[in-house]
């Protein structure tokens, strides 16, 4: 465990020495915090809705096994194909079977897919895989990891973005171009991928167990493409995303968007099964303009075990808005460099403990200030600093202190 703290500290020092990252973080993060706080101060109704989502999530977690069974049945009833993956290797195996090899795959940004290493796994099987969220595409091009749950390339300056698009994709961009000009170049590049893709892989912000329906929220429009254009759509859903109904799921995504500073969200996609039509001979045919097949993979990977941990279980309420990251003074210096393989910052320390093991999470916890800003920020009132403190005690306990 001690070695893991040394490693975590080395990563933090690297972040502090990364001038590009420091410039980006010191420019963007305080602005984002101020914008979200102002929005929430003027929208008490959203804060009230967030408290309702807390109750929905608590109830869902209490009924988790029942909701998983119900979701598996409901997904079948809407002609989706449900799967259950207990861990990383099972999830990769299911995705690999669906995708096969030599295919073009487009992915919308999914932290769960990132956690499971889906992109790298599919590439290793001989597939051409593209991230389509612009920030996540930049992360893919950089060969790093997402630095924020919603804004994965928050650590990159405009200069760095231009370098990556020019150097890795061969796009004709330079740092004197406006962001709009760069976005247009990326849009043109990704169009060809969307059109030719065989499989689209997304996450889900919520899965309604009663209706077998996934709900996704976004602004870029890439999720609509990923989940609509290819003939096969695969959705990876952590078990903590299960809620009883579509109405509950809509509440979750609205709160997530608001606390991420993206309200109203540009798009909310509600997906219940593959596309279909009954217009010819009154016979329902699956596979109209959207996908023919929808696979929904419900993923555990440490979450159900965490549910039995009195302290850590509260983290499963997280809607991954990333507001706790934005307000955290440590994260403000390091982004997700203070974190595990996928998740960083206050929520990331805890997600790392859940998905990569308590030992790793406990070592990361030692670098928390315990200042409590994350507790104030969390829409679903997860006592993040208290849980992190508990991990610190487990870390020191392992040293007999």
């Amino acid at each position, binding site marked *: 465990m001690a070695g893991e703290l040394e490693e975590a500290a*080395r990563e933090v*020092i690297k972040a502090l020495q990364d001038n590009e990252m420091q410039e980006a973080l*010191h420019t963007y993060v305080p602005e984002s915090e101020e914008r979200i706080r102002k929005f929430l101060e003027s929208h008490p109704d959203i804060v009230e809705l967030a408290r309702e989502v807390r109750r929905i999530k608590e109830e869902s977690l209490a009924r988790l096994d029942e909701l998983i069974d119900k979701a598996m049945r409901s997904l079948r009833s809407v002609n989706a194909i449900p799967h259950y993956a207990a861990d990383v290797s099972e999830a990769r195996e299911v995705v690999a079977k669906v995708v096969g090899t030599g295919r073009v795959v487009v992915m919308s940004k999914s932290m769960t897919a990132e956690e499971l290493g889906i992109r790298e796994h599919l590439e290793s099987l001989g597939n051409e895989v593209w991230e389509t969220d612009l920030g996540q595409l930049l992360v893919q091009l950089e060969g790093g990891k997402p630095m924020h749950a919603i804004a994965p390339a928050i650590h990159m300056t405009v200069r760095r973005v231009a370098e990556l698009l020019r150097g890795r994709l061969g796009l004709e961009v330079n740092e004197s171009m406006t962001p709009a000009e760069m976005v247009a170049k990326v849009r043109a590049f990704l169009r060809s991928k969307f059109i030719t893709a065989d499989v689209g892989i997304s996450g889900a912000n919520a899965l309604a167990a009663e209706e077998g329906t996934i709900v996704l929220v976004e602004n870029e429009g890439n999720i609509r493409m990923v989940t609509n254009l290819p003939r096969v759509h695969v959705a990876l859903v952590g078990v903590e995303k299960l809620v009883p109904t579509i109405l509950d799921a809509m509440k979750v995504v609205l709160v997530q968007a608001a606390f991420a500073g993206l309200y109203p969200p540009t798009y909310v996609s509600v997906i219940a099964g593959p596309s279909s039509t009954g217009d010819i001979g009154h016979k329902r045919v699956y596979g109209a303009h959207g996908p023919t097949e929808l696979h929904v993979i419900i993923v555990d990977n440490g979450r159900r075990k965490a549910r039995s941990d009195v302290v850590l279980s509260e983290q499963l309420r997280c809607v991954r808005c990333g507001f706790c990251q934005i307000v955290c003074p440590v994260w*403000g210096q390091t982004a997700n460099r203070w974190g595990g393989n996928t998740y960083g910052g206050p929520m990331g320390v805890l997600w790392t403990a859940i998905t990569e093991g308590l030992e790793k999470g406990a070592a990361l916890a030692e670098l928390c200030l*315990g200042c409590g*800003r994350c507790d104030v920020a969390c829409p679903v009132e997860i006592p993040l600093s208290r849980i992190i403190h508990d991990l610190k005690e487990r870390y020191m306990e392992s040293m007999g202190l």
Partner: protein
Amino acid sequence: MRYTELARLMSELTLSTGYPVPAPRGFASQWSRGLGLERRGTGRLLFTGALYQLVPYIEPLVDLLRALERSDESAALALGLARTASKVLDLSALPLLRPDRALLGWSTGVLRSIVSLLARSGVEFDYMPEVSDMYSGALLRDMGMKRTFKAHAERVLKAIESTGASEIITVDPHTTETLAAGYREALGVELRVRSYLELVSTSAVKGAGNLEVTVHDSCIYARRLGLSGRVRELLGAAKASIREPPRSGAWTYCCGGPVEALLPSLAQGIARTRARELASTASMAVTACPICYVNLRRGSEGLGLRLVDLAEVIAGGG
């Protein structure tokens, strides 16, 4: 290995000397010399928790750790040697760990200002240096050293109980919260703890002239103890004009202090971020916590920001 060694050094020093960093015997009570403070049987104990007194000794240790930050091996070796040496030597006598003279004077001044404010407010209290200037164990608790914290807290609690006090007056946020919440969690006791901020009356506050200040709220006072309003009342009574920084009250920003021992450069980065924000608000910033003061002092180098402790301002010395 560095962090294991550091945690063990702090743990062992606390259990052997009562304090988590090397400091000479009797250092914690130097501030009260000549004040005539004593046990008066008031039932109220002044408990400084020694945090203001420790700050001048923490500073050279943090400097040393910062110098060693880039090399795990040298840091682990130095801390390992320090652990061994601490069993036979007084580490504070080492030239590398000499206290910061300016901070020594500052911390004495702040504690004397607090005592003066309490006296002017008519608050009577007992002071027994061997108990009043014990360390609460705040840092051990912050780092999660549950066992060491509990062992130390038991000793402190016994000493407090031996005084017969029914109420404890504290002078900094970390000690206040540790005695109230930390001792409840670790030992199951409910101590009646009150910060001096709650006891000083506005009539005891002296005018600070035409002072324009910004306020750096301590995380603990603001988010856990709900005392940020009180800080402003006292500054208002001193006729100080307050300019609020972008992040204050429940949204106050940390000074970085809690990680200063583990990763000084991280603490410094956070302190710098906060100091810039304060400097863009006013040329003087008021703190009410020694850890905030010393971290922001480091972080504000070259920014033209003057830091003062609340007690210095409202006692009339700011």
